[in-house]
């Protein structure tokens, strides 16, 4: 995709009980928001393995949004605290990889906060639009271009 008509691609992990419900509520309330966020339903934000986040980035996501219940209101009691702990260590690590803080966002959105789904999605889309594309798959291709200089027969195999 050319830089010009590039649109931020954001993957969201929403917990079934609060944030996914809030996104449904936003739908029922016909709130209009940016189409850039695609939602994956998990039962609890505690299910979100940092591997998922990196996998999303590695496959071309420009941002990852995680939505859970407010602290103290987790349907599973404390899953959201575990998410907070993981995300804060993961962020520390992502900085070293050169991934900007705004590309990963953790938000507490209760089932009643359809409006907040809209605000957060719009805000995040705009923030990432400002940061520009991350486009890791493209980067990998660029990195591996140095290997193409040589002719290396049938066994040649690229990672991506």
């Amino acid at each position, binding site marked *: 995709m050319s830089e010009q008509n590039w649109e931020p691609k954001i993957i969201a992990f929403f917990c079934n009980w609060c944030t996914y419900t809030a996104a449904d509520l936003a739908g029922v309330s016909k709130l209009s928001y940016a189409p850039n966020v695609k939602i994956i339903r998990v039962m609890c934000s505690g299910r979100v*393995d*940092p*591997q998922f*986040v*990196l*996998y999303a*980035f*590695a496959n071309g996501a420009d941002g990852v949004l995680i939505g859970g219940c407010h*602290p103290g209101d987790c349907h599973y009691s404390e899953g959201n*605290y*575990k998410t*907070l*702990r*993981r995300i*804060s*260590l*993961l962020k*520390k*690590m992502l900085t*070293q*990889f*050169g*991934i900007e803080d705004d590309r990963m966002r953790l938000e507490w959105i209760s089932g009643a906060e359809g409006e907040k789904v809209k605000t957060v999605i719009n805000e995040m889309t705009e923030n990432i639009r400002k940061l520009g594309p*991350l486009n*890791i798959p493209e*980067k*990998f291709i660029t*990195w*591996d271009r*140095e*290997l193409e200089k*040589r002719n*290396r*027969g049938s*066994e040649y*195999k*690229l*990672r991506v």
Partner: protein
Amino acid sequence: MSSKPKVAFYWCASCGGCEEAVVDLAEDILEVVKLVDIVFWPVAMDFKKRDVEALPDKSINIAFINGAIRTSEQEEIAYLLREKSQLIIAFGSCACFGGIPALANLYSKFEVLNDVYIESPTVDNAAKFLPQTTSIDNNGKQIELPEFYSQVRALDEIISVDYYLPGCAPTPKLIANTINMLLGDNLPTAGSTLLPDIALCEECPRKDSKPTDLSITEYKRICENLVDPEKCLLAQGFLCMGPITRSGCEALCIKGNMPCTGCLGPTSRVVDFGAKAVSMFASLSSGKNEEEIEKNYAQVMDPVGTFYRYHLSKSLLRGKLERGI
């Protein structure tokens, strides 16, 4: 020519420890030598590249390649060995995952060369020469030199690999077992790692001392704290990679009172070693607000270096994303 199986050894970007590990077989190496014909082993024997080129395709039975791929020369030999060999074994953590050299993927090629050839305090290079890919020899003839790539790669990013034997370095026992297995009739499934697919805690002598209700308020650095020689290292707050890392080494480091650093790599079900490490260490920590949580991690000085010490090449992100050329 003898009918004994032909074996090749080669080293790429590595410290030499893997070669040392083969030598560490001690008397057992004689047994090995009895069983096989070594056709290529630059560290120990005088074979040239052309000797290998002269061999018919697939005539080498097993080629053990250690080290990561950083230069075009390493790449070239890897291709050559792939053509000439039936089985390629990625030997050691560098060949399997990029290893320690792969941590250079956090820096650009220029930063690495600049640091090594110019900035380093022990270097005297007033003219600021950097390695070149061409040079003129004494006869005035232009010669080509290997190119230093911008990226450190694991072996299987260059050629297909039949088996993996990680380890920094693989222990003599693992090497002996592997050789015996490969010389036997029952070959494991292609592409497999020749280690148990179960994490290190399984064989850790301190397993029983780990509590079931572990909740860590602050991770500690091994260099700044006294280590209890009996108790689970993770329970003491040290970043021990044992739960994420494969077993097979018999918990050598832990027996030496040092936490596991993860050289044997993750089990087959884990996609990204570092991400999984983040998940586990974070899950075991306490704290209910950002401030408390940040405090837990204050001593985790270098998350990438700690959680991807051997795996950066094979990690999902492969290295620092913006780092120039």
